[in-house]
């Protein structure tokens, strides 16, 4: 599953990032790395969402959300 399939209030663990090269690097610099836990704070139907990771709140668009592969954090 990707972050796009996630729901508000749930936590997920990142398993891979599949977006354009420069964006991938920027995401990684912001702390989106494999095994990092992300919590979706709120999301819109169109896929834009606010997530929290490493104590930082970030708004990301649909394309980025669809490019971040995750699994349930409890798994």
């Amino acid at each position, binding site marked *: 599953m990707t972050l796009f399939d996630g729901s508000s209030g749930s936590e997920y663990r990142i398993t891979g990032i599949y977006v354009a090269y420069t964006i991938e690097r920027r995401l990684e610099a912001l702390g989106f790395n494999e095994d990092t836990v992300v919590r979706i704070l709120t999301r819109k139907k169109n896929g834009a969402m606010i997530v929290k990771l490493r104590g930082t709140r970030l*708004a990301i668009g649909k394309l980025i959300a669809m490019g971040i592969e995750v699994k349930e954090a409890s798994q």
Partner: protein
Amino acid sequence: MKGNCIKVAVVGNPNCGKTTLFNVLTGSRLKVANWPGVTVEKIEGVSSYEEFELRLIDTPGIYSLASYTIEEKVTRRCIIDQDIDVILNVVDASSLERNLYLTLQLLELKKPMVIALNMMDIVKERGLELDLHRLPELLGNIPVVPVSAAKKNGIAVLLHAIVHHFEEGPIEDVFQYSNEIEEKIEKIEVIMSAYDPKHHFKRWHAIKLLEGDEEVIRDHPIETEILIDRSDEKKVIQEKYGYIEKIVEEVVFHKNKNAHRTERIDKWLTHPVFGIFGFLLIMSFVFFITFSIGDYLKGILETILATISQSIEQMLQALQVADWMQSMILEGAVAGVGGILTFLPNIAILFLALAFLEDSGYMSRVAYVMDGIMGKVGLSGKAFLPMILGFGCTVPAIMASRALETEADRRKTMMITPFMSCSARLPIYILFSGMFFERYAYLVSFSLYLLGIFVAIISAFLLTRRRKEKDKDILLIELPEYKRPNFRTIRIYVTTKLLDYLTKAGTTIFIASLVIWALLHFGPNGMTTDAAASFGAILGKRLVPIMQPAGLGNWQFVVALISGISAKEVVVSSITVLFQATNLAINSGNQGLQQRILAVAPEFGASNAYAFMVFSLLYTPCIATIATIKKESMSWKFTIQVILFQLILAWVAAVICYQIGRLLV
């Protein structure tokens, strides 16, 4: 050491309170310029401690020392190339984990460095505790000073640390990567030593080469391809974050005890439905106070200016100054510049509100809230930020379009940002809606702001359709903690903007007023008292047939609009000069000017006034904006396209508004 002067670069993440701290350290003695080659602002200030003079340079907020954005490149060049003695790294303690990533990169430069640990109050509020003894130990024993930029706590200790550490010299390696990476770094360092034995920052550059940094590769034409793998950058980043996780584990206690205030507020302000209502409500409140309180203060200012204008008139008469000279001073300079000065309160309130929204942390939420609507027209929610800044001034707004990812997005944003009503257009709305819409003046002005947003969004939609672009929305923006806006930051922001406005009134508008006066008092037969025989009238009359369908078939309006290209405020000063209202206030406010307009153009009514305002909203932006668009797009072709597009659109919209208005009234 160069005498007693220490050069300090202030570096930190966006929203870490860097600017507030910088302002506290330097006071308001600031020198603002651009970084070489780019239009990013470079701010320098001076501070002193004991016998030392500290020259501080504020660098743009960045998350990483990579070279993907202009801000990153600028900051990097500053701390590597310029003779910076100490790096002052401002760290948001409430977001330690992310902030430390930049810190680790800075430490790899092995320059003297001091950390200012900001936002400690938020840390306390959340029920967190930081081990301030362990933290420096894990960061190579550099000084870590807790400060509160907002409350001015810890400033003396910080200055002491900068001076003391500066004398101590560079620091040692902070952490080791895995053996695999360390071996590669070592090998690259050896190759680099052969290439340039005197190389500074060898380790840092070796790591950057490993990360595949384009700029560093360009500057170091050495053979390292066999060593470097595409996945190395990923490993370097992950290992840094691995070390940061270790730091956080050892240093931060009582995690997540209190529910976050920010998250409670965000529940409403970023709600899919209420978020948009909230945004509209906030914006309409901003415009409401801009008009209501602003107009009240404007009235007081008008009375004062009228008194000044009258005393100048009496003085000129007492000195028996020639009539033409009196006319030039009173009808040209005083009327033009005075007319502009009376709008100072409205503009001050507007900028105050924008500064408040920005400093409180709300502004970046707008990008998220508007992302859905912006996505439908093919723009990222991020494009809404330049648009909001456009309410203040189009020039910085156009510059802000740089934050967008693709060239196509940037150009589209540059094309539509001028449709946002900048503060210079506010006087036009206030003047004309006040004269012709009386009780509904506020609503009419607000409708123009909405019309601007509407036209911008529709234009973006059409531009996207024309270029058949695919949906490329790349929204990625940090939402900072909500905080009480800092008085000092807001004060500095608002005074800078007002000084800009006053400077403009004293220069561009002063000259434009005199030029307009000359155009109206000189004709083919020399000086004339009949404005209808002046050069201005001849020029205006030529264009009257074009403007007739928009209900603006008087040469005076045409001339006023042409003069507005120098700066949009000039439209108002020109109107007062053209209709020979010595000062808006002398003729008992708007009514005097309205009577003079009706004397020249008896037909001129509410629909004409609205068409005039619509045209002013949409047509060619001012010279400064045109120059900025050219600079940012680096294309004359594109710049001319923008000008023509806006001119044609303004005409079409004004004609539609006037013709519909005429049917209704």
